[in-house]
């Protein structure tokens, strides 16, 4: 147990700005039903993405659980051992329902992990730029502009062409193309916050830059960056799916939704539509619910309204 130490921080730095603002944020969400609905949809989709793979009838990554003999069966067909393939099977004989559920989980993991890492890097860079200002700020932001100057899909594509396939490599590529977005937004809102009196007070108290950055600036300027993060997860998932579709993403043995869609492309012309259509629908539901929630959140936090 830690010895009791009276917290005197609030006597020195009035927390007036902090508390009401946060409460006000929550109130904003509560006031708008459309945000609540979109967040509810998002939560359902996210939970489904985590829980449903546990209930999947088959493990699509375990070669022993499916047979190549049962490849490209139409939806509703039955397997040799009596299981029904409600959405058909792919060219390897995988049950599409299971493959989609597992693929969705991979897409979610890649999207969330990549976004979290990129977010942390972006937040640190943005905070450092805003806190130190002048030269440091100029150099960092030039670099951010440089990174943002290139289309993410090309950078990730070329990067993965050099690195090879793999879930970790895809995450790395997404982090490389995304951190700069967060850095820019974080810097912008931290710059506004920096002008306020409580930061000046903290500086005059001789607090270290580290403390000011993470204890004062961060909690008060993080909301903007978190709001864009919702949309950015959708972008990350789209990017992963696209890279996998182009054949430089996740390995063939662990198909994500994008790779499943790609594997059905060659059979599309002969009318075996289900291999591409259903994983794509799952992907769209995932991306759309993220974008919808992100858009509603952004609307609510938009200071002009």
């Amino acid at each position, binding site marked *: 147990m830690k010895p009791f130490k009276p917290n005197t921080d609030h006597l020195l730095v009035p927390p007036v700005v902090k508390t009401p603002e946060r409460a006000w944020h929550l109130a904003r969400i509560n006031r708008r039903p459309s945000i609540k609905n979109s967040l509810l949809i998002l939560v359902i989709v996210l939970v489904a993405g985590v829980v449903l793979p546990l209930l999947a009838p088959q493990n699509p990554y375990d070669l022993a659980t499916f047979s190549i003999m049962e490849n490209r069966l139409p939806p509703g067909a039955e397997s040799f051992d009596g299981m029904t393939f409600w959405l058909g099977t792919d060219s390897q004989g995988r049950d599409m329902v299971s493959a989609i559920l597992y693929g969705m989980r991979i897409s979610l993991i890649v999207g969330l992990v990549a976004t979290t890492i990129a977010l942390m890097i972006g937040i640190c860079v943005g905070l450092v730029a805003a806190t130190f200002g002048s030269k440091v700020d100029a150099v960092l932001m030039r670099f951010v502009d440089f990174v943002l100057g290139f*289309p993410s*899909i090309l950078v990730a594509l070329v990067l993965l062409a050099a690195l090879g396939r793999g879930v970790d490599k895809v995450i790395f590529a997404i982090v490389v193309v995304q951190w700069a977005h967060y850095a820019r937004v974080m810097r912008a809102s931290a710059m506004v916050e920096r002008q306020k009196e409580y930061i000046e007070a903290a500086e005059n108290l001789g607090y270290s830059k580290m403390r000011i950055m993470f204890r004062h600036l961060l909690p008060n300027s993080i909301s903007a960056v978190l709001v864009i993060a919702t949309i950015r997860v959708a972008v990350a998932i789209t990017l992963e*799916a696209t890279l996998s579709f182009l054949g430089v993403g996740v390995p063939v043995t662990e198909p994500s939704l994008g790779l499943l869609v790609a594997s059905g492309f060659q059979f599309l012309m002969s009318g075996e539509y289900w291999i591409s259509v259903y994983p794509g629908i799952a992907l*769209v539901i995932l*991306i*759309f619910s993220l974008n919808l929630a992100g*858009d509603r959140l952004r609307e609510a936090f938009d200071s*002009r309204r």
Partner: protein
Amino acid sequence: MLTYIFQRLLQSAVVLLAVSIVIFLAVYTVGDPVELLVNPEATELEREEMVQVLGLDKPVLMQYVTFLGNAVRGDLGTSFVHGVPAVELILSRMPATFELVVFSMLFASLIGIPIGLYIGLNSETRMFRIIMTGSILGYSLPSFWKGMMLILLFSVVLHWLPSSGRGETVNLLGIPVSFLTWDGLRHLTLPVCNLAIPNIALMIRLTASGAMEAQTQDYVKFARAKGVRRKRIINRHILPNILIPIVTVLGLEFGNLIAFSTITETVFAWPGMGKLLITSIYQLDRPVVVAYVMLITFIFVIINLFVDLTYAILDPRVRLMDQSS
């Protein structure tokens, strides 16, 4: 103005140099091109020769200097697979990509801007809400899947439109184009739609939010108070003002569309430079990948410069010299 352009060109040169270093290290030092070029029965001696011809026995720095020296003279290497200069190969594919991109942008602007303007001016209606939410779906559809669904619907099920290739082309000023023949137009339709859909959504959202904001501005209120007709307010007051961000985004989107056409070209087997990039990545044709990245960077740098200059022309308040803000 001239000083500014000169400054920007200098900056662009630095960017190109930085990119050349990164891409050289990323692509040239990973793997072994000799494996690819020499036939499997080659003797050790032939291998050695190949290594020397390619200059792979030299230190990385020397290799880079050679590469840079050649690059400055416009030589970005020879394609391993096709045996022709990489730059030439990419330039020969460029018209197809540009045709796709230009038509997508035209299509997106012609549809997106009027719809956006209309709903932005009527933002209290139900229509506004529906279209705005629909536009989120517009950019949520992953390009590759949407392309495949277009093929499934219009080529496989309905048999209306062809699913791949450029169709019949005619030469316009020595450049082969598809849009002047009926067959070419039919081939162009699906890829253009596929590439344009997210941008239609973007144009709608951008124009709508611009129009909504402009309506609350004093100059619009004043014009209305003066008794200016609604049509004139929209055409002469609102539209020119909201056009500035639209032009900026359109310019920047041009570059993005070139990048994103890679996916569309792959789905529709459109023989553009994006398809070439993907094929080259599969075939480990490094000079083409490097040349593509360098060329794309160059195009981006030019587009950015162009957008900034157009900005200054459209909005007299923007001062190009002022770099402090």
